[in-house]
Structures are given as C-alpha cells and as structure tokens.
C-alpha cells in the first residue's frame, strides 16, 4: 500500500515537470514581460538592467531550474498587473473557488447519485422520464447560459438571490469563508447550481447506466433469490458495485470543477482563482497564468491519487498480498 503511494507520487513527478515546462515556456513565447514592465518610455540601459535583474540573460535551462526551484517553494514572482506576489493573490482567491467547488460537488453528488439510483431502479416511471429529460438539459446547455438564465429568474425577476459576488465573508486566519453569513450562503446558491448542474446530470446518467448494468448481473439475481430485502439488494449489493466507475468520473469531474470554474466565476463575478486567471489572460499576466496552470495540474494529480486509493477501499479484488485462493 505504502509502496503503491510512493510509486504513484514518483509517476506524478514527470507529469508535473512537463506542466512546469509548459508554464515556464509561456514566459518566453507569450508577450514580452520586459516591454510590459517598462511601459512607454525607457532607455536602453534601463532595459538591459531589467533584463539582467530578472535573470532573462541566463541560459534557458538555468532559467527553468530557477523557475522550478521557486515553484516548489510556492514562489511564482510578482503579478505584472497587480505588482503583488502571485502566491499571495492565489492564496486570497483560493478559498472562494474551493468553497464554490465544494458546494457544487456536494450538490452534484447528493442529488445526482440518488437520482441515478432511482432512474436505474424504476426506469419506466414517470418521474424517471422527467429526470432523464431534465438531465439532457443539464448536459447540453452551456454553463454560461445556465448561469445567465438563473440570474435572470432568481436575481432579476424574483429578486431572491444576489446576481454577483460572494456576499459578506468572515476571515478565519488566512481563509475567508462565505459559509458563516446568511448573505454569503445566499450568494453561493446560484453559482453552485450553475457549476454543479453539468456534473449532477453526468453523475446521474452514469449511476443510472451502471445500475442498469449491475441489476442484470447474476449476483443481484442471487441476492434476490436469497430473499434479501430490496434495500439490501439495491443499496448494499447494487450501488456498491457501481462505485468504481462513479468514483473515477467524480474524481476527474471534481478536478474539472475546480479548474474550469472560470466560466461560472466570470458570469457571477465570483472573486475566485478562475476570475483571477481570466483577468490575467486579458493583460497577459504570465506569472499568474503559469502558477494557475501548475496549481491545476497539481489538483488533478492529487485527485487521481485519491481516486486510486479509493478503488482499493471499494474493490477487494485490487488489494494484493492477502491469502491466496485454493487454486
């Protein structure tokens, strides 16, 4: 088990290095930071001094090594746009994105899984058909459209919920949370639905398909033939067997929720990492962009590791080193 984790972490290193290389390369190919930092009027001497200060006159590999070394320590330099350390900027924005992603993921799971189980068990019922039609909407409508529609209905027409921002937040150390104030919670509702709806419908359809598959298996038939109550058959035997593919997809989708909250954050002017990223793209604020890229890669790599560990928890066939069968 321990060896497995070490092995996975070692495998993750080349991935992270490759991403680091890409985010480093952005500095060289996207815009000229020197020109951006100097502004309109400068002398040749000022320019050379800046190039030297920034270490841009050194060979590529030395620059990359320096960059990687700094990145490991969480140093990504100053934002061109805001002239503040990138790590600090991301640190400020991360709680907003993580809270939003958490709410969206909880919503997607807490609603998507039961809906999937229900539509799998009662596939011909009226409600199942309704859920399936509804899920088509969720899968096919683009996120920005859903967000704008929700704003139109709940913020503009009904006036129940705010249309933008996080509401009031409470500072817990470096973490700013919206969970502790009423306006913070209200502000979370629309963005969470917008961000989570696609995942919700995806999870629902996946769980449904897996349930239909599993309910046809011999061990479910045998569980029924043993006279087990429906609850035990459906939730004990059937649902657990759908979990491996569901965990895989949910893991990847959770990464996607964090990484691609950009659209939702833009629509709701949510002060998270995604909004920071999109604003940085607008002015070619490369330190922020490259740090964001690395962070997202790290999120995906970590989630994949957790997903692999969950497989072990769910499926005994993957565990090795236990007593061998009488073959």
């Amino acid at each position, binding site marked *: 088990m321990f060896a497995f984790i070490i092995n996975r972490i070692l495998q993750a290193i080349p991935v992270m290095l490759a991403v680091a290389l890409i985010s480093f390369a952005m500095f060289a190919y996207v815009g000229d930071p020197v020109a951006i930092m100097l502004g309109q009027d400068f002398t040749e001497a000022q320019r050379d001094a800046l190039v030297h200060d920034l270490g841009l006159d050194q060979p590529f590999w030395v620059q990359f090594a320096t960059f990687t070394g700094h990145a490991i320590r969480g140093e990504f330099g100053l934002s061109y746009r805001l002239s503040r350390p990138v790590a600090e900027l991301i640190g400020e924005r991360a709680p907003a994105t993580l809270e939003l992603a958490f709410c969206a993921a909880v919503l997607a799971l807490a609603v998507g899984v039961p809906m999937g189980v229900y539509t799998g068990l009662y596939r011909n019922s009226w409600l199942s058909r309704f859920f399936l039609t509804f899920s088509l909407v969720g899968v096919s409508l683009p996120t920005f459209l859903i967000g704008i529609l929700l704003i139109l209905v709940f913020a503009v027409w009904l006036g129940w919920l705010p249309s933008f921002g996080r509401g009031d937040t409470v500072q817990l150390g470096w973490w700013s949370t919206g969970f502790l104030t009423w306006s913070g919670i209200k502000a979370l509702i629309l963005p969470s639905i917008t961000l989570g709806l696609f995942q919700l419908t995806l999870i629902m359809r996946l769980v449904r398909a897996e349930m239909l598959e599993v309910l046809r*298996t*011999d*061990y479910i*038939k*045998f*569980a*029924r*033939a*043993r*006279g*087990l*109550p*429906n609850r*035990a058959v459906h939730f*004990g*035997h059937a649902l*657990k*067997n759908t979990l491996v593919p569901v965990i895989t997809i949910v893991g990847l989708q959770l990464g996607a929720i964090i990484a691609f909250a950009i659209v939702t954050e833009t629509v709701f002017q949510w002060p998270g990492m995604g909004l920071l990223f999109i604003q940085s793209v607008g002015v070619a604020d490369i330190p922020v962009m490259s740090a964001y890229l690395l962070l997202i890669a790290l999120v995906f790599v970590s989630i994949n590791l957790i997903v692999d560990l969950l497989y072990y928890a*769910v*499926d*005994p*066939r993957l565990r090795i080193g*236990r*007593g*061998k*069968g*009488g*073959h």
Partner: protein
Amino acid sequence: MSNTAPLLQVKNLRVEFPTRRGTLVALDDVSFDIAPGEVLGVVGESGAGKSMTGAAIIGLLEPPGRIARGEILFAGKRIDNLRYEQMRRLRGKEIGAIFQDPLTTLNPLYTVGHQLVETITTHLPLNPAEARKRAIEWLEHVGIPAAAQRIDSYPHEFSGGMRQRVVIALALCAEPKLIVADEPTTALDVSIQAQVIALLKTLAREKGTAMMLVTHDMGVIAETADRVAVMYAGRIAEIGPVREVVKHANHPYSAGLMASIPPLDRRVERLAQIDGAMPRLSAIPQGCAYNPRCPQVFGKCRELRPDLLDAVTTRAACWLYDTETARG
C-alpha cells in the same frame, strides 16, 4: 409417493413474454409435482424452458415475462400470485436457488462471510455473532477447509468449485424445504462436477430438502434424480421415474435424447443425434412441437397438440399413447 402431499405443485403453468411482434409463449401447460425430499431432474435442450420453470417457481421471472395462466402451490398454498415482499420472505427461507455460474453469483465486493451472515440474519432469528458461527458451520459443511479463516475471504480468493460450494452454503443456510438448482455444475471443471453433485445430494438427503435439478447432463440426472421431466419447446414431453425414462423412454424425443448419450462400452463411428433443431418460440409448429423431427410422426401429430398421456411406466405427451388413436 402418492400418499405424501406434494411440497411443490405446478399446475398448467403458462409463461408469456409480450414483445413488440406479439406474445411469445415460453412455457405452456407445464404441470408437475415435487414431493418433500424428492429430487426432480429437468432436462432438455437449451431454450426448452427448464430455467424459465425454475425462475417462475422462485418468482424471479425476468420482466416482461409473466405467468399468464396456471398455478404454483408450495406446501399447499399458492405462491404464484404473492406480492413481491411476501414472496421475498419465502425465497431463501423456504425455496432456495443455486445458479449456473459460481464465478458470477457471488458479489465480488463482499466477503463470503458477509454474504452468509446477511442471508442467515434475514431469515433466522439469530444475532450477528450467532449467525457468523452458523456461517462457519455451513462452510465446514460444504467442505471448505479452514472455514473459520476462509470466512473473511472474498469470492475471488476461492476457486470455481469452492465458490460453488459457497453458493450451495448460501442457498441452504436458512434450511429451505426446496432447492431450485439451475445447472449447478455446467460451469465447473468435469473433475469438480461430480464432487459438487455428490455434495448437493448428501446435503439434500441429510436435511430432507427437495430439489428441482435443472441440467442437460444426463449422467447427473441418472445419478441424482428420483424422477425426471424432459422438456421440449416450453412443454413437458415426458415425466416419470428416472430409471424408466433413461432406460425405456416412451416419448420419441426422450428416446432420441437418451440415444444421443455416447456409449462407453463400444466404439461408435458417428455419435447419434436428433436431426434438426428445436423450433424458436415464435415459430412453434402446429400440433406436436416435435413433429418435424419425430421419426414416428403420423397425421394427428401435425394437427393437434398431445397432453401428457399415460404411457404405463411414465407419462408422455405423445399421440402414440392415445388409446383412441390408431397407429399410423
């Protein structure tokens, strides 16, 4: 046998599958009894309705299949029209089932102990600790070595034969009065088959459990069953004591089936076979379903379907045994 009340009575059972292209009749007019402690073998080609009969008895017909006519009585009470929940209480407790493939009948994510304990506690008034003790006893009973240690193993840690033993323990652990065993040895190695059949036979005898043994292995039937029912195209072609059916089958189909068992005592150039194939459910010929393949076919066979008729040693659905029919 005639003086004991039957444990299971199947009367004129008809199972239909409504499809878009009309209704398919999977079973028609199937009637038989099983006495307490008796082993009834059910044989026939694939698709003859053997497994379907078993599924109808345990109340687990795959939808849209449904019982359209007839009755199933267990210990004198009708069970074919019970609600799901009432039938569930009978399953496992009164009527156990064993399926064909032990590799797929056990849930891979739970230990065999978990699956045994949940079955025992569902049906018997035992607490989990007692149920676990009972589970270990059952594993010992079905011949799992070191049962106390193996109880916490997962199904994939057992071989096929061992898994079928676990399945048998699961089917018997609430001590049902009837076991529906649907081809319990088909998926096993030949060398294991005999062991599993012997085990089933011993346990059934010990506990006085009746058994409906579905198989297409005539050897298994000859060794295990008291009586045998031969099925063809959703109907019973012949039913009678195993010795009579195997040695002196009366229905031309059963005779053909028995003749196709290769003899061990002499070399044959060509194995005997019945020409043609069993008709599909959607294209069952008029009259006797076997008439296109029957070597003794005559006029009436092509017009009317025979019911089970008295053929002295057995009962056969064949016009040859109709006293009013002149042989053609």
